[in-house]
């Protein structure tokens, strides 16, 4: 073992470095801006960093490399998840353009970028320490982001997220400790050891570790924080959380599932996860039915959507991972798009996320309504959107893996969800005059562009399903 690092190691985490540096740059730029609230400057710098990181990550694709003695694996799997994280970050950053002038923008943008670093770290992390750190980096930033607006609900959401997330992280940590105890190693790759299959300690450690992950994925019954936090947090943060947190957690979960399990135990070891995924698909969708707030509705929707994605991994086939990634990408775009629309019609006080303010939107803002319709169709799995294709692919792979009950839960959940999404569509297109807000927000170019781009991608992905075909070999 050589104990020195090459440039390759630093290059491997180049995207993370770029994003972290961009966060610093935002803060520096803010120093010079004085109190002029150059929120666009912060956003643009952040975006530039994200784009640069995206390019850097893209160039790594296909060049597998285990950096830092196996601590961070890059090249394939990690790159894909990094890109999704970056997409989520960029989409969320754009939404900062809709909140009014605020002295905190630079700080929040910087923290968001660093949180994204955490998620990217999770994407590539191959040992428990890195996973834990990535998770904490992500979470700490989010605690701060949630509360970073003068609104009681925002602070409440931060508090709830803080306590619950810390508790869950403690479980994860305890699990990690047990795993360490069982294996004598923190490297995920060392867990792939047949002798561990019969170690109760390993099972217990994996179980507690998974609790933490499942909490981040917000699967029922670890979902309770999601609606409250989504509703209370500022819109860009909610968007960020809905995509980036879950991407990061999913990356860890996928790596754990595909790489870090003794052979032959996957079906039994992960059974609770499939069960909670199935429950999530039902409860998440049912929970949407009685909602009157869009962010809250999307929170429940996210619970179910992640259920769909997790289900694709059941069976542990390469195809499942591929389809999960496809759906995750689609989910990122449709969620970001939906939040972009929500941001475009709500002010910084975010009254606009009330469903009632969507009444008659089709006449007042036809293009936004159309975009929102596309996102809702996508979320409910209707064509011509990527949601449709993703869902059918997941169904196919679930059936192929023999998890018929999961497919059934998926179908039942979808059936329920259709109603909830359609309710929003109906509100937008119903002809009756609603008490439509006179506080309609003016045209916000960045958010509108984000919505349009997301809509275009969501549709285009149906017809040109861009999925990396060889992800699995890159997991290890």
């Amino acid at each position, binding site marked *: 073992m050589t104990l020195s690092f090459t440039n390759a190691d630093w290059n491997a985490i180049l995207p993370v470095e770029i994003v972290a540096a961009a966060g610093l740059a935002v803060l520096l730029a803010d120093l010079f801006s004085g109190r002029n609230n150059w929120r666009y400057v912060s956003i643009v710098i952040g975006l530039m960093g994200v784009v640069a990181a995206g390019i850097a990550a893209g160039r790594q694709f296909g060049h597998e490399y285990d950096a830092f003695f196996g601590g961070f694996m890059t090249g394939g799997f990690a790159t894909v998840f990094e890109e999704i994280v970056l997409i989520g970050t960029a989409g969320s950053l754009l939404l900062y353009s809709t909140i009014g002038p605020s002295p905190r923008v630079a700080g929040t943008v910087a923290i968001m970028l660093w949180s994204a670093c955490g998620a990217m770290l999770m994407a590539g992390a191959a040992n428990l320490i890195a996973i834990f750190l990535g998770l904490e980096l992500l979470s700490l930033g989010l605690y701060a982001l949630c509360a970073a607006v003068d609104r009681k609900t925002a602070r409440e959401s931060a*508090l*709830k997220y803080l*306590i*619950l997330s810390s*508790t*869950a992280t403690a*479980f994860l940590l305890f699990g990690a400790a047990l795993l360490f105890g069982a294996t004598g190693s923190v490297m995920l790759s060392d867990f792939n050891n047949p002798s561990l*299959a*019969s*170690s*109760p*300690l*390993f*099972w*217990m450690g*994996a*179980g*507690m570790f*998974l*609790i933490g992950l*499942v*909490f981040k994925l917000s699967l*029922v*019954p*670890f979902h*309770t*924080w999601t*609606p*409250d936090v989504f509703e209370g947090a500022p819109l860009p943060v909610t968007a960020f959380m809905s995509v980036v947190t879950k991407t990061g957690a999913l990356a860890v979960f996928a790596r754990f599932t595909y790489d870090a399990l003794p052979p032959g*135990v996957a079906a*039994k*070891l992960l*059974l*609770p996860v499939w069960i*909670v995924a199935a429950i999530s698909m039902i*409860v998440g969708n*049912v*929970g*949407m*039915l*009685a*909602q009157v707030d869009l962010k809250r509705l999307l929170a*429940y929707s996210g619970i179910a959507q992640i259920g769909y994605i997790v289900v694709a991994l059941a069976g542990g086939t390469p195809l499942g991972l591929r389809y999960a990634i496809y759906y995750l990408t689609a989910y990122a775009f449709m969620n970001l798009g939906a939040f972009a629309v929500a941001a475009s019609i709500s002010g910084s006080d975010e009254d606009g996320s009330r469903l009632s303010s969507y009444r008659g939107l089709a006449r007042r803002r036809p293009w936004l309504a159309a975009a929102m319709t596309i996102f809702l169709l996508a979320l409910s799995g209707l064509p011509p959107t990527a949601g449709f294709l993703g869902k059918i692919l997941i169904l196919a792979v679930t059936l192929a893996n023999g998890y018929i009950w999961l497919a059934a839960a998926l179908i039942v959940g979808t059936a*329920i969800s259709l*109603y*909830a999404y359609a309710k929003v569509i109906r509100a937008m297109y119903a002809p009756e005059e609603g008490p439509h807000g006179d506080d309609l927000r003016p045209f916000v170019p960045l958010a509108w562009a984000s919505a349009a781009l997301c809509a275009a991608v969501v549709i285009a992905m149906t017809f040109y399903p861009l999925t990396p075909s060889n992800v699995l070999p890159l997991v290890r």
Partner: protein
Amino acid sequence: MGDVGVTHHVLGVAGSYPMLLALWLLPLAGAVICWAFGPQLRAMAGWLVSALVGASFVLAVLSWRDGTQSAAGAAGANQPLFSWMPGFDFGLLLDPLSLLWTFIITGVGFLIVFYSIGYMQGDRAFARFFAYMSFFVFAMLTLVLSDNFVGLLVGWGLVGLASYFLIGFWFERPSAVAAARKAFVINVVGDVGVMLAIFVIIVHVHSIGFGDTFAAAGTLSAAVVLTICVALFIGAAAKSAQVPLHTWLADAMEGPTPVSALIHAATMVTAGVYLIARCAPLWNASHEAQLVVGTIGGLTALLGAILGTAQWDIKRILAYSTMSQIGYMIMGVGVGAYEAGVAQFFTHAFFKAQLFLGAGLVIHALSDEQDIRRMGGLWKKMPFAFWVMLTGVLSISGVPGFSGFFSKDEVIYGALQHGHPWLDAIGIVTAGITAYYMFRLLFVAFLGEYRGEAPVHVGGAGSWIMNVPVAILVVPSVAIGGALLFGGDASPWAHFFAPLFAAQAHLAAAQTPAPAISENFTSVIVVIVVAIGFAIAWQRYATATAQRDAVDRLRTESEKMPAVLTNLFYFDAAIDVIFIRPSQALGRFFGQVLDPRVLDGAVREIVVTAGWLGTLVRSLQTGLLRAYALILVFGAACFIAYYAIAGAAH
């Protein structure tokens, strides 16, 4: 596609017959023109349609040679039209049978259409009327000229439609609308019967052509033939108003009188007769079918006659007499006496058309009064109409020398000859009743004093238009029977139909023992019975005593009429109770209870339950941090429990 060696039997000599096509399509052209350009044509519509139907008649006459030709055992002319697929070929067939019908349809049709120009004068929808009439002629021609069962079914349905249109012609009258619907629905029952027959035929014969079917008739099993015959007879019964599907015919009198004359007397209602005569090979192959059809025919004859004695509406009396007379025809063709049945159709077409048109003259003159109780003494006011009606009544009653005598006699004797003595008896009794109620009609309407309020308009500018056709009809109704039918097997009639019926009919007759009594003896009995019927009618309505207090007597008779007769043997009530009410009740139950409450209700319950679950999820989301933490820990406990157990077990 190509010849794959299956020989199709085609009736008639296949070839190109432009006249046949023309005589078939001319009325359709009339219908389309009148329909499309009705407002522009106005009064011209009548003349146009008359001309086209007349031209059709002329073409039919000119086609005589085509229709009667015979070559290689095939009688008549066959004009192929088009084919859906092999075995599903359409064509026109003009053979003696269809030629006869064509003559009546176009000939009598022409006279009636011409008559209608006068009768319908001033009606709001003059052109529409002639469009319908013309369409009817086309449809009827389709029916009789088709060389296959499906073509026949097409005609079968279309005549029903034309009949529906014409019954409901005055569609602002609710009674006419209801009558039209009733007629149509019952006719559809008949269509459905024919369809069923077609299915059986196709399954067993693999063709819809008459030729193939008749060629295969001998090879089919008795049960199959019986099924086909019974199914066809359902069609015939509905169309020809046979018991129990007869109830529509009397109601159909809601249509204008020329319609009743043409459709509900002369032509359409005899389609059943045509069908059975056409399918003679099938009936010949099934003795049971003959029995069924003959019996129902006889029953209808008797029932129609009995009902005829209880009616006061002049057209309804004629309607029941029509039903009764068709009963005769069906009995005739049913038992195998095809020539006789067809002869009865032939003479009936003339005298019944004449009777209806005569009644039309009366009704027209009395401003649409149809109740004979409010007539009386009309022979003085309308002598022409009286003479018309008188000759018609004499003919229908079977007074010797008149056309009706010859044909009816043949039917009655035919029943005996083919081994159905009880049908013979029914025929004789019915003849007596017929004489009674027809003379009753004549006496009550035309003798005595005028009892109505409406003024009587006779004559007028265009009255010749109505009188001439009626006058022309008198001639055949009096004389044609003697001219064509006299002479039994040696008559021109028998000769004409020899290629079609002779062989089979005689074959069938040969199987039954020769009847004990001769045809002449039967005729004598019939004449005696008719005389008795006439005498009773005379006694009740024509004597001086009867004339004196006619008003009171008629009122008393109306009041004392047995309920079973005024309710028409409860057929309508039975249909109402057995079919209509239950289906309506069922429909209401399905539509108002089962659908919204149970079927939709179940789904609604699911949705409501989902919504309730949504609220439940909402209520679990209390907003209390400690509760969330507890749920989290609960989930964690479940997880840990699983892993503790599973890990230990592994």
